[in-house]
């Protein structure tokens, strides 16, 4: 602790030193006087022979200094003092930095929480998603999830793999919970054995499912999510062992999962065992997400090879029924493409977030450029002071350090203020962030974000301090001492740094505005896309599921749905209503299968492209505002008469028969034993996966059909979305009446996913709107900072050139001439910046190509518009200083000399 004592005994040390040196000098003077020198001369001589007292005292202090900390303390004190002497400079600089840091910290906290932090599972790095692709299965290529696993694949992989500690499959769904107050539709996740073990998160209460819960037709059990447990049972710890009625069946509650637990990216209320029947599963049924935990040390490549090896085993071990060829799947070229679970969760949002992070980083650079400019001006006005300090013996490093300490201090203070603002910023981001942003609930400012903020603050401090420090430290002391007092026109090289900064700012602002402009164009393009439904604000959607435990017989299911439609249509203000297995963009898992046309020839052992299957009620098209392109709609008599009719989407009709009208009367079926179904109508293409995605080819079946396999009773579509066209859509009173109408048909039917199609639509474009807002904010900040930068530099230039301008005016130059000179200078800078910016934008906007829609990354219109806007703004920013220049009074300007 010696250095600590030294630090505090500093004052004494200094006093003693001064006293000692003074004594030395006195003694010398006395001696010289005794030798006959005059007192005055003696004092001069003594000082000369002693050397620079201040410097020597400093050298003495340095001997004791604890590695130059004290000097830094001194510099900080000095810096703080000079900051408080220039409050306007300090406030402007700090605000610029604080806002820049806050924006960066907020976006970084999102990037960190979503992309960088490991998932919330123990040893999350071992977790993988059993993703696989099937390039040979046409129609499957669009699948976001690749080819999902079938139960038989799960059994094969689970039984024979050599690279996983555990693996399992899971699927999301919904279920009706009754017997407690109002019936409720809840979100479920059904899991095979191995899923909970793979994720490895212990239950908050009770136990996991184990193998005994996976017995087909065995006792049915269920686990609750923390949220559902709180909501429905008030967190009652005695729920374990109690029964809950799920889809009209009693199920025993065996456990509660902890708060925040999700199945990969799925929120849920209940989870239940899948309980596959090993004796009954077939090859097909590719509907399950696979997850696994790698053995320690096993790589993804090894795991891929492991599963590739098992695919032939899978085909040999199972079949699709007697007479079918199991090796038909060889044509699909199924390829395991296992990926880290984190990648599966994050999906393609990484690209979006990095683009946003990049743009916000550019804003920070622009902010730094502005502060650099301010500092340059400040250092310049301090030239005289610095020159004096140098002349008095301050070393170059000392002055550079002083400037750097001051700028880093600015950076850190700005960073502290910025971190405070960032807390608000994060809340804002979470509020406007797309609700389908993965891990949205995990976004928070943590130690890493604070560390990032600190480093960013220090680095930007160094960045904007470096240029002034290098430029003015030590160089040309004498000349600056000579010239500092006079306002001669400054040399060109003095302006070079500032001009470069302005050019850089304009270039960066152009890049940012360009990306914002491209997003605006994208959004506009999205708005013009016909999603396949009209006036979504007045289209109420809700989902009703009728489990077979409630109504077993198929026709009664359809009649119940029909009755609900009638009750709904009777509500006041309802224009029309219909139902469909799922509306576009709702995001429910869809049915896909092959379809065979009667008039086409299919080679043996090939699988025709897979098509999206939907079931629609008569009247749906009218209610949803979906156009009928050719033919007619199905009728209720078609439905109840089990007539073999079908409808197809326009793109499917064109692909198979050339024109929509040519499709009418053609016949198709799903597989050989199914009766041929006649195409009666062609429906406009709908953007099933969102406006940005191409419309898939769709086959529309009736809601009630003969058993697909040609035997047994007819089959009904039990889970459907009802859509109601009404001006009252979305209002509370309307929804109350809707619920009452449904309950009047069957009091056990819960109403779920109640929303207007507008909400569905907005959610679908949420990612684009989010990007638009973020880039818009970044662009606006860049533009504002750019204007301030140009304005600042031009004002300063004009004030420096006052004398020159005064002379010009005195020699007869007109105000217009002066205006032109200043404007030309500013415009030239802006133009250079714009040219560089365009070159940079050409290279950089390509990075956001995947976020764009209906516009290329090099959209000429956006480029021209943004460039014009920037030049215009730059000229305006120059105009005010230019006007001021014309008002220079030659007499006043020259009087200073």
């Amino acid at each position: 602790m010696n250095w600590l004592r030294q630090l505090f005994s500093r004052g004494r040390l200094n006093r003693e030193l001064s006293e000692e040196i003074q004594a030395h000098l006195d003694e010398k003077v006395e001696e010289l006087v005794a030798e006959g020198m005059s007192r005055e001369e003696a004092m001069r001589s003594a000082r000369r022979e002693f050397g620079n007292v201040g410097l020597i005292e400093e050298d003495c202090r340095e001997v004791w200094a604890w590695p130059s900390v004290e000097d830094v303390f001194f510099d900080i004190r000095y810096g703080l003092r000079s900051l408080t002497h220039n409050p306007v400079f300090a406030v402007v600089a700090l605000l610029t930095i604080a806002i820049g840091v806050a924006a960066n910290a907020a976006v970084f906290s999102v990037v960190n929480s979503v992309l960088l932090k490991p998932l919330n599972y123990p040893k999350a790095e071992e977790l993988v998603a059993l993703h696989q692709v099937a390039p040979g299965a046409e129609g499957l290529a669009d699948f976001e999830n690749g080819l999902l696993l079938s139960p038989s694949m799960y059994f094969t992989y689970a039984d024979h793999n050599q690279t996983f500690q555990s693996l399992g499959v899971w699927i999301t769904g919904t279920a009706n919970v009754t017997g407690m107050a109002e019936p409720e539709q809840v979100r479920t996740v059904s899991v095979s054995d191995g899923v909970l073990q793979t994720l490895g998160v212990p239950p908050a209460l009770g136990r996991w499912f184990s193998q005994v819960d996976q017995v087909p037709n065995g006792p049915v059990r269920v686990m609750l999510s923390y949220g559902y447990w709180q909501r429905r049972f008030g967190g009652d710890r005695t729920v374990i062992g109690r029964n809950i009625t799920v889809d009209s069946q009693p199920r025993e509650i065996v456990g509660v999962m902890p708060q925040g637990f999700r199945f990969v990216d799925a929120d849920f209320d209940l989870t239940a065992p899948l309980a596959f029947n090993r004796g009954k599963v077939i090859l097909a049924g590719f509907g399950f997400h696979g997850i696994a935990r790698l053995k320690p040390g096993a790589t993804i490549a090894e795991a891929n090879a492991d599963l590739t090896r098992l695919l032939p085993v899978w085909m040999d071990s199972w079949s699709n029924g007697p007479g079918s060829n199991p090796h038909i799947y060889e044509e699909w070229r199924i390829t395991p493409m296992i990926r880290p679970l984190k990648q599966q969760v994050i999906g393609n949002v990484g690209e979006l977030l990095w683009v946003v992070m990049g743009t916000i980083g550019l804003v920070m650079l622009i902010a730094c450029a502005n502060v650099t400019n301010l500092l340059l001006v400040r250092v310049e006005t301090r030239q005289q002071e610095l020159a004096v300090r140098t002349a008095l013996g301050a070393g170059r490093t000392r002055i550079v350090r002083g400037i750097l300490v001051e700028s880093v201090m600015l950076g850190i203070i700005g960073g502290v203020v910025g971190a405070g603002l960032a807390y608000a910023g994060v809340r804002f981001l979470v509020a406007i962030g797309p609700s389908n942003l993965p891990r949205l609930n995990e976004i928070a400012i943590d130690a890493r974000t604070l560390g990032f903020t600190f480093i960013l603050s220090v680095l930007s401090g160094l960045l904007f301090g470096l240029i002034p420090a290098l430029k003015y430290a030590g160089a040309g002391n004498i000349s600056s001492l000579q010239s500092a007092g006079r306002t001669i026109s400054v040399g060109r090289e003095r302006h070079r740094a500032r001009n470069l900064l302005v050019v850089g700012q304009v270039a960066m602002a152009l890049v940012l505005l360009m990306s914002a402009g491209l997003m605006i164009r994208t959004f506009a393009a999205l708005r013009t896309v016909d999603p396949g439904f009209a006036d979504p604000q007045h289209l109420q959607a809700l989902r009703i599921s009728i489990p077979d435990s409630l109504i077993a017989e198929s026709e009664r299911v359809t009649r119940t749905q029909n009755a609900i439609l009638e009750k709904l249509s009777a509500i006041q203000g309802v224009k029309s209503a219909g139902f469909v297995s799922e509306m576009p963009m709702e995001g429910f898992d869809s049915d896909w299968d092959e379809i065979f046309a009667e008039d086409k020839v299919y080679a043996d052992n090939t699988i025709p492209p897979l098509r999206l299957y939907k079931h629609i009620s008569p009247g749906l098209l009218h209610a949803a505002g979906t156009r009928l392109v050719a033919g007619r709609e199905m009728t209720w008599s078609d439905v109840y008469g089990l007539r073999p009719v079908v409808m197809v989407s326009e793109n499917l009709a064109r692909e198979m028969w050339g024109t929509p009208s040519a499709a009418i009367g053609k016949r198709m079926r799903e597989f050989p034993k199914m009766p041929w179904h006649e195409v009666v109508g062609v429906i406009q293409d709908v953007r099933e996966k969102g406006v940005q995605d191409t419309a898939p080819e769709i086959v529309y079946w009736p809601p009630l059909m003969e058993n697909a396999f040609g035997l047994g009773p007819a089959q009904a579509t039990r889970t459907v979305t009802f859509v109601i066209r009404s001006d009252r859509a979305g209002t509370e009173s309307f929804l109350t009446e809707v619920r009452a109408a449904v309950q009047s048909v069957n009091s056990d039917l819960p109403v779920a996913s109640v929303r207007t199609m507008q909400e569905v639509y907005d959610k679908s474009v949420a990612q684009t709107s989010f990007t638009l807002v973020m880039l818009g904010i970044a662009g606006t900040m860049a533009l504002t900072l750019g204007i301030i930068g140009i304005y600042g530099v031009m004002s300063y230039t004009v004030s420096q050139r006052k004398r020159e301008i005064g002379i010009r005016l005195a020699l007869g130059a007109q105000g217009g001439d002066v205006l032109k000179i200043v404007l030309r200078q500013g415009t030239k800078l802006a133009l250079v910046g714009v040219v560089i910016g365009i070159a940079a934008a050409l290279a950089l906007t390509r990075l956001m190509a995947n976020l764009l829609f209906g516009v290329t990354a090099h959209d000429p219109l956006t480029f021209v518009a943004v460039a014009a806007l920037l030049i215009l703004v730059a000229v305006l920013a120059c105009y005010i200083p230019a006007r001021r220049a014309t008002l220079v009074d030659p007499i006043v300007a020259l009087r200073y000399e």
Partner: protein
Amino acid sequence: MNKPIQRDLFPGALEMMILRTLKRQPMHGYALVQQIKRSSNDVLQIEEGSLYPALQRLLKEGFVKAEWGISSTNRRVRIYKLTAAGGKHLEREVSSFERMLKGITQVLAPGEL
């Protein structure tokens, strides 16, 4: 740094001279300067001030200690005194200096090339 002072012969030389001088008797800064100048027959023109940082270094290393006292001219001065550690340090430095000097002299000796 461009300190306008005459550097001593090699780093550590000034410290060595200070220690040697103090070995004879404790003295204060001014006297020390005069003594060194005198004993080098004014060959070594050290800048008087440069003595003080050197003294501070020796103080920090514990080779000398300082006490406030009264000089012959009746001034309050700091009187420096060699410590035991300082004495040992001086011996080491002197012997290594002599070795070095011997080496240099041999190289510079005429006629042997």
